[in-house]
């Protein structure tokens, strides 16, 4: 097969994927999106003869548009631009999960500091405010007091670009010092890990300690439903455990990083991902023949 890989930076995750693909003798076209131009009908990117292209762009903006162009050219791309669009935006993410009946933290969005303050006061302290676009736990704030709320809102309104004037306010979930990251292929879990920290943010990028995690049936069902809710694909589903012993899904990531999961889990994550990619490429090839 010929697999295209969209990137702007090769992380350890991409190196693991590239190594697995090459070991299986697949032809790999590395496509540095920084060097490409995307026209309405054609591109400089080396996509000819690619059975499938996997989007591993580090920058969300590039991911959104590059996948949109490739899809317009009729190139099978993982993940789809539709999935990317939902996952890249916390508002769309939350709405998709809610519409699918997936338990997700109570969330309100406001467009002015005054309305955001009302939302915060309704949630009570602590609550959480997040940027609608962003990752790795950056610019997330746990708000413990009215003074902190006022300061954070003023800073966002004054210093941020327009996206920061969309105030995404969320209930604070008092999780047991950890959350759960699941890597799933079209809703089928590949591996899962816990991310633990004494800090309220448990992201591996923030230094959370990782450990292998065995999913129960309820979690597996939630992962499948959450995956479907955002359009499926190669996804990172993030869950928290509540005080009531339930799960809540706070987000689904579309350019999922898995190096930490690969180390925490006994599963060979890149091998499982490439297994799935091969299947997706076969299906895409069959569909191309049928429509030819």
């Amino acid at each position, binding site marked *: 097969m010929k697999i295209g890989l969209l*990137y*702007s*930076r*090769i*992380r350890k995750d*991409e*190196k693991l994927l*590239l*190594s697995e693909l090459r070991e299986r003798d697949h032809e790999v076209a*590395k496509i*540095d999106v920084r060097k490409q131009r995307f026209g309405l009908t054609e591109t400089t990117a080396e996509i000819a003869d690619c059975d499938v292209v996997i989007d591993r762009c*580090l*920058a*969300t*903006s590039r991911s959104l548009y590059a996948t949109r162009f490739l899809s317009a050219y009729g190139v099978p791309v993982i993940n789809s631009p539709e999935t990317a669009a939902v996952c890249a935006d916390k508002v769309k993410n939350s709405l998709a999960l809610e519409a699918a009946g997936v338990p997700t933290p109570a969330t309100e969005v406001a467009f002015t500091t005054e309305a955001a303050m009302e939302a915060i006061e309704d949630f009570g302290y602590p609550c959480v405010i997040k940027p609608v*676009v*962003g*990752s*790795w736990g*950056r610019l997330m704030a746990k708000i413990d007091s009215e003074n902190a709320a006022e300061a954070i809102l003023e800073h966002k309104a004054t210093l941020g670009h327009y996206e920061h004037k969309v105030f995404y306010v969320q209930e604070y979930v008092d999780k047991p010092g950890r959350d759960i990251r699941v890597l799933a292929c079209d809703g089928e879990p590949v591996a899962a890990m816990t991310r633990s920290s004494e800090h309220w943010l448990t992201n591996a*990028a923030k230094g959370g300690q990782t450990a292998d995690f065995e999913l129960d049936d309820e979690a597996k069902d939630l992962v499948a439903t959450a995956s479907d809710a955002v359009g499926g694909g190669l996804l*990172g589903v993030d869950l928290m455990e509540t005080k009531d012993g339930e799960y809540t899904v706070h987000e689904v*990531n*579309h*350019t*999922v*990083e898995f190096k930490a999961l690969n180390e925490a889990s006994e599963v060979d994550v890149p091998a499982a991902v490439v297994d799935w990619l091969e299947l997706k490429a076969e299906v895409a090839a069959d569909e191309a023949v049928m429509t030819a």
Partner: protein
Amino acid sequence: MTESECVECGGTVTLHDDLEIGEIVDCETCGAELEVVDVSPPVLDRAPELEEDWGE
């Protein structure tokens, strides 16, 4: 193992064999993040600064 020169401080950067164009290495002398722009021979350039929309 191969070596290249840091564009920031001129120090020697030791590189592993499975180098990939597009990956980031750190200069152990000055701490600069460097991007691999070629592999044979290895060529390094300053890595792009972190952007707000980077992530998963």
